[in-house]
């Protein structure tokens, strides 16, 4: 064997530059990962710091009063907080059965696989339609269409405080409906994934002892998938709380408080979207305070969702 041939198989020590590059890129990737943590921290610190003024001057009163007057510097976000909670929970109540029902329909062998895939794809594409476009559709198409139904609701059940105002256009109820459309995809796709992950053995065992499809569903498959489904529902709740554009366009944006879901209302995110561009002075600080509350709400929901997924998962 010639000498230069031998050289090919000699173990070579890494050159300094090679080591340097290797270490350098490890550091680079590490710092890129750290940026995420820094951004999360920065968001909290900045928004909290900016809202300190308002927290000092209004404190807890901010959460329980609902006069919002930049001229006299009086701020209370109760209407917006109520609106945020009502719209998100009400939309959840409608979207959960719809989403989970759809997920079951497209995981079980009820219809051919191709149609199931198509329905799944369509629900996912629904998530790709921007919020602002859904808002536009809600203003011009959905709201005029459902107004007679809401009016009927008012005429029949107007004595209930939640339905006690005459619907005149934009309001909390249409906002709830458009939120249902927006959180449906996330609930459906996460429920579908969790149902698919239920081991085939469980189904086989259930069918083997003579269970029908739906007895197996309610007693075996759903309990096994409940952690994922709950996680998806909570993620949907977080999404609904923070959802801005469609809600801002259809909710009516008024800070006058009313229990009724047929009246116009406000959410925290709608308030931010409406006022931030032109706010100054103590109004900015108060808006930051509202943003801080919204962030805490969604954070609690999201962390709870992650905890549920980890904690509730059955060990089959």
């Amino acid at each position, binding site marked *: 064997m010639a000498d230069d041939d031998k050289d090919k198989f000699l173990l070579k020590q890494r050159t300094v530059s090679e080591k340097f590059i290797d270490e350098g890129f490890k550091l680079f990737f590490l710092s890129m990962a750290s940026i995420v943590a820094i951004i999360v921290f920065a968001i909290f610190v900045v928004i909290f710091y900016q809202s300190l003024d308002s927290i000092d001057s209004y404190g807890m009163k901010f959460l329980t009063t609902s006069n919002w007057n930049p001229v006299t510097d009086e701020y209370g976000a109760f209407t917006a907080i109520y609106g945020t909670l009502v719209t998100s929970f009400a939309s959840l109540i409608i979207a959960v059965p719809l989403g989970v029902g759809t997920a079951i329909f497209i995981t079980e062998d009820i219809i051919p696989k191709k149609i199931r895939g198509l329905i799944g794809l369509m629900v996912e594409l629904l998530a790709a339609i921007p919020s602002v476009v*859904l808002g*536009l559709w809600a203003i011009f198409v959905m709201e005029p269409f459902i107004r007679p139904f809401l009016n009927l609701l008012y005429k029949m059940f107007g004595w209930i405080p939640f339905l006690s105002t005459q619907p005149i256009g934009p309001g909390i109820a249409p906002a709830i409906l458009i939120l249902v459309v927006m959180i449906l995809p996330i609930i459906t796709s996460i429920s579908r994934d969790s149902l698919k992950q239920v081991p085939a053995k469980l189904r086989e065992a259930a069918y083997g002892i003579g269970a029908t499809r739906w007895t197996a569903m309610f007693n075996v498959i759903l309990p096994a998938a409940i952690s994922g489904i709950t996680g998806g529902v909570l993620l949907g709740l977080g999404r609904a709380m923070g959802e801005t554009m469609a809600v801002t*366009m259809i909710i009516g944006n008024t800070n006058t408080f009313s229990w009724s879901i047929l009246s116009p209302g406000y959410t925290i995110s709608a308030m*931010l979207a409406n006022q931030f561009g032109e706010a100054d002075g103590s109004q900015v600080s108060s808006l930051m305070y509202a943003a801080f509350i*919204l962030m805490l709400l969604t954070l609690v929901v999201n962390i709870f969702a992650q905890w549920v997924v980890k904690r509730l998962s059955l060990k089959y």
Partner: protein
Amino acid sequence: MTISKLKANLIYDPKSKRNLTEKLFTSISAIFSIIAILPLVLVLAYILIKGGSQISWETLILEPEPPGDDLLSAGGIGPAIIGTFIISSIASIISIPIGVGGGIYLAEYAKGGPFSRFIRFGTNVLAGVPSIIAGVFIYAVIVATKVLFGSMFSGIAGGMALSILMLPTVIKTTDESLKLVSDDLRRGSLGIGASMFTTVIRITLPAAFRSIATGIVLGLARAAGETAPLIFTALFSRYYLTGFGDLFYEMGSLSVLIYNFALEPYEAQNELAWAASFILVVLLLSMNILSKLVSDIASGDSNK
């Protein structure tokens, strides 16, 4: 006698209580899925018909007129289309290196210690942050402080706000796609003496490239349709860019145009909003469908 009774039970009786309940639940779930896809069909049909009929060369190219000036023609959405592309590009330029780099760190270097768990947790928190909060944050840090050459609202600030929304998607998809790459490839590469960096760049990244790319496109499609973070970071402008310096000033985008013009009391403006919705929806849906097709092909390959 008992045997015949048993036999009778084995015959499928469509009117038995048990089978009726079965049918009831099946039809309920079928109705629910129809209700679930109904909004997509309705919204799409309306946008394609109403928005599509507004599309012409003029709408695509002209600048929008000030509201109320001309009640018959509101001009076009040209600057907003360009603006959406520019703002999304800025968002990608920021979030792709950070996201892919961070994803590489999580999948290749981190050994499951507290730091990587913390980063994953942070990514999930960031994914749950409402989009408007990203706007508020950029407003406080960039817009209000005027750090960008003393200008307030700017296309760059808008891009930064969108990049915060893209970042968690990019990190997660990079992390997950790299984890799917077989360890044999890594061992093979490291075994013939390649450095860790060479292994990542030459072996694992190319193997995961397609799924990372589809993840990025999906993240981009989500960010490009966002409005909330833009309405007080990029604000809105009716004019075309004239040069590089305009990046530091207000910039229009399709989504903000839809929002602004939807709330105008003038018919012509509302129609422009529908036209912009048509462009935006067609753009985002085709990005989504394309990336789904590509990822289906990719997963089909690995199955063989």
